[in-house]
């Protein structure tokens, strides 16, 4: 077999060609990464630019703290305070229900669960994460809302109904993130605690949970973000009246519900006010994202 002789010059040329290709692809990879920044920038610019007319006309203070949302009367008023309060109530309620159950279940899955049960439970929580929010909404509307109507009277579409459904929705997030955090704590922390005479529970709740603090906090904040941004499940079960609630059996309207209910027909200032609502929501989420990265940085 005769080998093909390649001259040095030819090799160099080939290598140069390869270098050009390498450089070109590197640039393409960088462009792909830049696309992420561009996407965030475009979203920010368009939402804040379209929200600005409403903020300018209504006034930021009046918009955030105005207590009346009357978009379609002759002298419309756009105050989203009831919606912000509504979002906060629903979020708080969902966290009150979801966080304890989620964290305790995470402890179960990390420390108590026999392997056989784990094999069933892990997929089960994953299924919970996969169910579309619209199905949660429908389940809430047909099952939870009537139950609450029986207990508290009224229509049943209430803060409580939304809190229960959203509390269930954030379970998988809290369980999986916290469980991973608990499993990441070195085993000898647990063994050390038990060797010092602590019971299993004391070791878990006084040693393992504090050690996994940042992961547990992250799971709660991720759940918080999910609740604030949740739309389809909430809009069907929270009652959607834009007034301040008196009790947990009263209906509220969240910021997300406000957008999805009215964007279809809104025009002019009304539309801009809805986009401004989305901008407020966006700022909320930015703060949450920042919190998560701060916690992560501190943990390192």
């Amino acid at each position: 077999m005769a080998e093909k002789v390649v001259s040095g010059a030819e090799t160099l040329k080939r290598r140069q060609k390869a270098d050009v290709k390498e450089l070109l692809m590197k640039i393409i990879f960088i462009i792909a990464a830049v696309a992420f920044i561009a996407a965030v920038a475009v979203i920010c610019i368009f939402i804040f630019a379209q929200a600005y007319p409403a903020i300018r006309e209504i006034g930021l203070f009046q918009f955030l703290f105005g207590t009346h949302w009357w978009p379609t009367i002759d002298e419309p008023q756009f105050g989203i305070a009831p919606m912000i309060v509504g979002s906060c109530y629903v979020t708080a309620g969902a966290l009150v229900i979801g966080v304890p159950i989620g964290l305790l279940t995470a402890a179960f899955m990390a420390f108590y669960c026999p392997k056989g049960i784990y094999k069933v439970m892990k997929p089960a929580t994953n299924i919970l994460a996969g169910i579309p929010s619209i199905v949660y909404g429908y389940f809430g509307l047909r099952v939870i809302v009537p139950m609450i109507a029986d207990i508290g009277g009224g229509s049943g579409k209430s803060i409580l109904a939304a809190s229960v459904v959203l509390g269930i929705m954030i379970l998988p997030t809290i369980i999986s993130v916290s469980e991973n955090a608990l499993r990441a704590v070195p085993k000898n922390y647990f063994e050390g605690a038990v060797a010092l005479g602590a019971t299993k529970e004391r070791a878990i709740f006084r040693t393992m949970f504090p050690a996994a603090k940042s992961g547990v906090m992250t799971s709660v904040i991720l759940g918080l973000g999910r609740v604030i941004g949740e739309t389809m499940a909430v809009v069907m079960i929270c009652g959607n009246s834009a007034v301040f609630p008196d009790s947990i059996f009263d209906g509220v309207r969240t910021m997300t519900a406000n957008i999805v209910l009215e964007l279809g027909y809104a025009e002019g200032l009304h539309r801009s006010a809805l986009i401004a609502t989305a901008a407020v929501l966006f700022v909320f989420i930015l703060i949450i994202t920042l919190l998560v990265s701060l916690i992560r940085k501190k943990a390192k």
Partner: protein
Amino acid sequence: MAERVKIARACGTETGEETDISQIVPINRQSWKDKLRAYTNKPFSMAAMLLVMIAAAITVGVVLWILVYTLLKGIPNLRWSMFEWKWTSSNFSVIPALFNTLIIAGLSLLMAVPVGVFAAIFMVEYAKSTNVFVKIVRMAAETLSGIPSIVYGIFGRIFFVDFLGMGYSLMAGSLTMAIMMLPLIMRTTEEALLAVPDSFREGSFALGAGKLRTIFVILLPAAMSGIISGIILGLGRVMGETAALIYTAGAPVNASSIAGLGQPGCTLTVYLYTMMTEGMHVGEAWATAVVLIVLVVLINGAAEFVGNKLKKEYN
């Protein structure tokens, strides 16, 4: 057991006498009674243990409750006519909406996968993690994954539907979903690439391959199952998404047939939403919910199956 006997024998020969294995009592073994006594001595521990058990039971109960209730309500209402090619007001076919969903999923993946995978390649193979640019990209990805779907929806409405003049269309919906999926694709690809052992890279370089060839011929095929699981997860995301699609892909009340790219068309979830807000046809709505849940569970299961294969390959 056999091992233990051997150890016992080994110990025995050292001390010069045979030990009867049955006489060795493990001191760390607690009987049921010991545990109960320990718990009655520590009431707080017992309470904590009971709370943990109750919480776990609630979680399992809730999963079963939702699944069983939906299936019980939905399956009796499933009929073959629901899977006819065209939607009419009598058969409530899910097929047009299902195909709209698949079209949007396909298109958005077609756009998001190259960008997400290339960005992941840059992040893992080219950039150093201390780079400021990398940090900004990572922040951007985190922000994108945190933005609520309704904000994506309103952005899609402003940008694609109005500003670019697409109108309510499958195209506008796909573009919105593509942006939404970017962080998911990037994260799964990054994880898959990081899971490929460095020896693959070193071997490839040692054989004279350039960086590009290493990436496309060695690393991407090795990371393929992770990337595919990300893609399947993205498909599941489109299946379950509603809020971002109502005001981009549109929600025509009579979705009689599959929409074209420039036409409005409702996906399965949006179709379900319109059915629910109308408040009639409760049975059909439950049946559609069952179809949706089954699809999503299958898709997520497939993603996990493929993803686990990756883990097995390198561990």
